[in-house]
């Protein structure tokens, strides 16, 4: 079958599956809509969390980023997995015991304040919208390249699918769709990785192939890569180029931010027990780790393939995939020295993103209106193609390419749905039911949640059709804000009984204002890298914001009144898994006695 037919078939089948699941698992009550009735098995919840968490950025972009960064790419690998250790041990079990629906619920009750709830709701909505805009762009890219439809049509199809299962099914529908999406996504990621690992190293397990020798030589993959890189003037792949302090701060901000992201936290409200909440975190990381340990291997293989294929190659003799990706604007070539061959070296070949004019050059390449830079690099490569084009670069069969298309869509749609649900919950539950209109019935609240989800999908779709230019720069925001606002407030709420309303609000506000100002100054007001404090980039500043939050919270809480007894009792209760919050002394011989 033609590759194109296969792509339509795979994507169509996967969409039919998601819709089928959505119809089967419609939500009938708010509890089902918000937390899937609180009855999700830990393995299913782990898969759903993994799909929720691994977005278009993890599936499409991450291996590419690592491919271009080398060792420093580890900050994403560790940052986006290490947060689960914090979640499993410091947040998930206690929030599950608390047993409400949302993160603002916890903040509001623990800090006995509607103001705290409103601050939390604003953060939730901002963080989630930032994130969802990126997902819609991912959907658009996959559609435009693989299905040869207009990006806008692609975004609208994606919106329609998410609409059906998020609005109908709520958390219940989303959970079971995400389980299916995880399976599609991980299969789509592993198949090309295994093929490529076999081709380059002869070892079918990418994690091992990564450390093996290149087939037919006695040189290891990493030595080969270091050799190719230095030959062309790039830094050694296994060396870092960012400063240690910056890598430290970014990794910490990503870890803590992960643990503080509302759409991840809310998944742990869906398990039946505290014990299952802990287990879910373990399974979630297990399912995530399958992709995250494969990604750096894919990154190195793809880098070798790319350098081998394009460097000093004549444009006219390049394989078809080059022209395909050039047509979709993710690759571009400017023949600076008019030799008809591609010279690939460090540095930007052109100023800004390629903007093509309607003409072809001497060798048949698409011409650009950008001004050329004066270095000797002629090739523009968008990092996203390292995963998307990998099967074509490695010459894999058509069905693998179709699988990658379906997988990329699964990754983007699953995350988008989780985020949209969090947004709609914040509006119907936190703003309406708990704040503005406490008198509404369960049915009315459910309707409000569905309407809010529908509106949020509409806005997210608009963001995908008219992508705001700042999307890429504001992703730092989502993690920085989660790290500097929610994480300290929740952590102190559980582990420090004395923490009170005044301390928590003061901490959240200073943490937020500090982090937001730093990011806005450097991302939007033209701040330059040599003005960074202690050499910390805006991506890593959430770590400092978190420390400021902790400090301010501690100082303010000690000069103001202790929290009311009822709140302190609540903290005691959430620390004990048992429903009644009672513990009993261990019996001398280690046996336990039932009370």
């Amino acid at each position: 079958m033609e590759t194109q037919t296969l792509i339509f078939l795979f994507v169509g089948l996967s969409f039919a599956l998601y819709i089928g699941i959505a119809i089967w698992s419609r939500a009938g009550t708010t509890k089902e809509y918000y937390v899937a009735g609180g009855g999700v098995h830990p393995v299913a919840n782990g898969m759903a969390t993994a799909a929720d968490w691994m977005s278009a950025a993890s599936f499409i972009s991450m291996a590419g980023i690592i491919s271009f960064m080398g060792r420093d790419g580890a900050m994403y690998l560790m940052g986006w997995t290490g947060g689960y250790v914090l979640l499993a041990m410091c947040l998930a079990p206690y929030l599950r015991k608390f047993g409400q629906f949302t993160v603002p619920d916890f903040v509001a009750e623990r800090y006995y304040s509607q103001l705290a709830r409103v601050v939390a709701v604003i953060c939730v909505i901002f963080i989630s919208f930032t994130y969802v805009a990126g997902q819609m762009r991912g959907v658009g890219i996959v559609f435009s390249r693989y299905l040869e439809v207009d990006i806008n049509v692609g975004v609208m199809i994606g919106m329609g699918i998410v609409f059906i299962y998020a609005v109908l099914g709520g958390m219940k529908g989303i959970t079971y769709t995400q389980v299916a999406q995880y399976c599609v996504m991980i299969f789509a990621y592993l198949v090309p990785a295994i093929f490529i690992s076999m081709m380059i190293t002869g070892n079918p397990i990418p994690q091992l192939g990564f450390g093996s020798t290149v087939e037919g030589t006695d040189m290891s993959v990493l030595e080969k890569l270091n050799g190719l890189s230095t030959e062309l003037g790039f830094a050694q792949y296994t060396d870092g180029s960012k400063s240690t302090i910056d890598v430290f701060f970014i990794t910490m901000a990503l870890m803590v931010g992960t643990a503080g992201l509302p759409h991840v936290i809310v998944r742990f409200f869906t398990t039946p027990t505290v014990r299952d909440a802990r287990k879910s975190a373990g399974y979630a990381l297990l399912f995530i780790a399958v992709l995250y340990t494969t990604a750096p291997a894919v990154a190195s293989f793809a880098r070798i393939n790319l350098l081998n294929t394009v460097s000093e190659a004549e444009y006219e003799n390049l394989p078809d995939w080059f022209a395909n990706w050039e047509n979709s604007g993710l690759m571009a070539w400017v023949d600076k020295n008019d030799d008809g061959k591609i010279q690939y070296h460090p540095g930007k070949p052109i100023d800004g993103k390629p903007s093509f004019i309607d003409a072809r050059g001497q060798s048949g390449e698409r011409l650009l209106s950008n001004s050329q830079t004066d270095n000797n690099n002629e090739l523009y490569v968008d990092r996203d193609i390292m995963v998307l084009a990998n099967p074509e670069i490695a010459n894999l069969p058509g069905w693998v390419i179709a699988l990658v298309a379906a997988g990329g869509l699964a990754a983007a749609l699953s995350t988008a749905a989780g985020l949209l649900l969090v947004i709609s919950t914040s509006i119907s539950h936190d703003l309406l039911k708990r704040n503005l209109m406490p008198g509404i019935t369960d049915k009315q609240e459910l309707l409000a949640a569905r309407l809010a989800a529908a509106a949020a999908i509409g806005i997210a779709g608009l963001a995908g059709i008219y992508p705001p230019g700042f999307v890429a720069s504001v992703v730092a925001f989502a993690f920085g804000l989660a790290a500097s606002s929610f994480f300290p407030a929740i952590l102190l709420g559980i582990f420090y009984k004395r923490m009170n309303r005044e301390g928590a609000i003061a901490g959240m506000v200073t943490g937020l204002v500090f982090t937001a100002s730093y990011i806005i100054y450097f991302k939007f007001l033209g701040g330059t890298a040599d003005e960074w404090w202690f050499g910390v980039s805006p991506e890593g500043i959430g770590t400092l914001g978190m420390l400021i939050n902790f400090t301010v919270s501690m100082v303010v809480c000690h000069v103001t009144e202790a929290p009311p007894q009822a709140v302190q009792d609540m903290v005691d209760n959430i620390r004990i898994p048992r429903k009644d919050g009672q513990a009993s002394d261990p019996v001398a011989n280690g046996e336990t006695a039932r009370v």
Partner: protein
Amino acid sequence: MSDNKRAAAAYWRENIRILLSLLVIWFAVSFGASILFVDYLDQFTFFGFPLGFWFAQQGSIYTFLALIFVYIGMMNKLDRKYNVQEEE
């Protein structure tokens, strides 16, 4: 009641001890081996990788995974010890 309170406090102390010891490993592997001492560790080779690089791109993730499952096991045991597990 006060017995219960004392038992709850003891349970919480043991919980914190487990938590802190596991978080020390979490920090040592990710921020220690993979970031602060990565260049030093790179002089050793491990299954074809420079050791620091391996920790940064592979080993740290395996360690995180092991830590969570060890935590689950230890906490289930601790819950039973203080009889705070949830009724089935």
